[in-house]
């Protein structure tokens, strides 16, 4: 502490240590929070086609099309350790080929400060709903689930599934009209 530089160095180092402690306190204050909440999902239009998947094998695979409704209020999820939410909509179903199939159909980033009361009506999916075979036509039990990643200032990066999901069935005939 005998010169200007050593004093400046000591204060800077101590300030950084304190900021690390404060960040850890921020993490501790939010680590046990339950980030689940309810989401209402519904499907509006559901069709399935059987078309060649040029991005994979050129074989004809099942391709599902659907539009969905989504209502949820994510405002309670935000606190001083949440910068943004990454929402994603997953379809999960069982086929003869695989016990569990999961396809992400849609996603959205909600920043803190954005309107977190979501109300989507008859929304198109963002990503293709390809099956890796012919498992979609007539599938009686496809479950849509909304999940979110919580992006914090400091701490864990949890993936949380919403309470409430929606199950629907694909029609038993391929559609021939354009979608």
């Amino acid at each position, binding site marked *: *502490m*005998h010169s*200007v530089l050593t*004093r*400046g160095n*000591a*204060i*800077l180092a*101590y*300030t950084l240590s*304190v*900021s690390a*402690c*404060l*960040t850890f*306190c*921020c993490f501790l*204050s939010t680590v046990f929070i339950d980030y689940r909440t309810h989401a209402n999902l519904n499907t509006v239009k559901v069709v399935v086609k059987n078309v060649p998947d040029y991005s994979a094998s050129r074989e004809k695979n099942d391709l599902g099309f659907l539009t969905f409704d989504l209502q949820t209020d994510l405002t309670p999820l935000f*606190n*001083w*350790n949440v910068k943004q939410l990454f929402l994603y909509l997953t379809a999960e179903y069982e086929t003869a080929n695989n016990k569990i199939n999961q396809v992400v159909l849609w996603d959205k980033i909600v920043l803190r400060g954005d309107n977190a009361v979501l109300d989507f009506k008859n929304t198109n999916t963002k990503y293709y709903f390809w099956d890796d075979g012919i498992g979609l036509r007539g599938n009686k039990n496809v479950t849509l689930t909304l999940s979110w990643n919580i992006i914090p*200032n400091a701490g864990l990066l949890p993936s949380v599934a919403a309470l409430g999901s929606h199950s629907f069935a694909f029609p038993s005939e391929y559609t021939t009209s354009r979608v």
Partner: protein
Amino acid sequence: MDFFDSLPTHMDYDGQARAEKLSRVIVTLFGVVGLVWGYAIQQFSQTIYILGAGFVLAGIVTIPPWPMYRRKPLDWQKPQPEVPTKFKKKK
């Protein structure tokens, strides 16, 4: 140049100790207040800004060798006249 050389730049030992203690107190205090305030308004960025303000204040108060850190100079002995060379040689 003479003007800069005439500026006193040192702290005495007691002043150094007090400067260090004072800087720790300031930074810690601003950190705690920032944490409470940031939690109250749920904005962690405010916590960091307040801590930064504490850093700047501690820097202003304790980095320059202010006169208040020079109040207890050590009582150095007067320089002694050089030992006569004859005394050395006697060995």
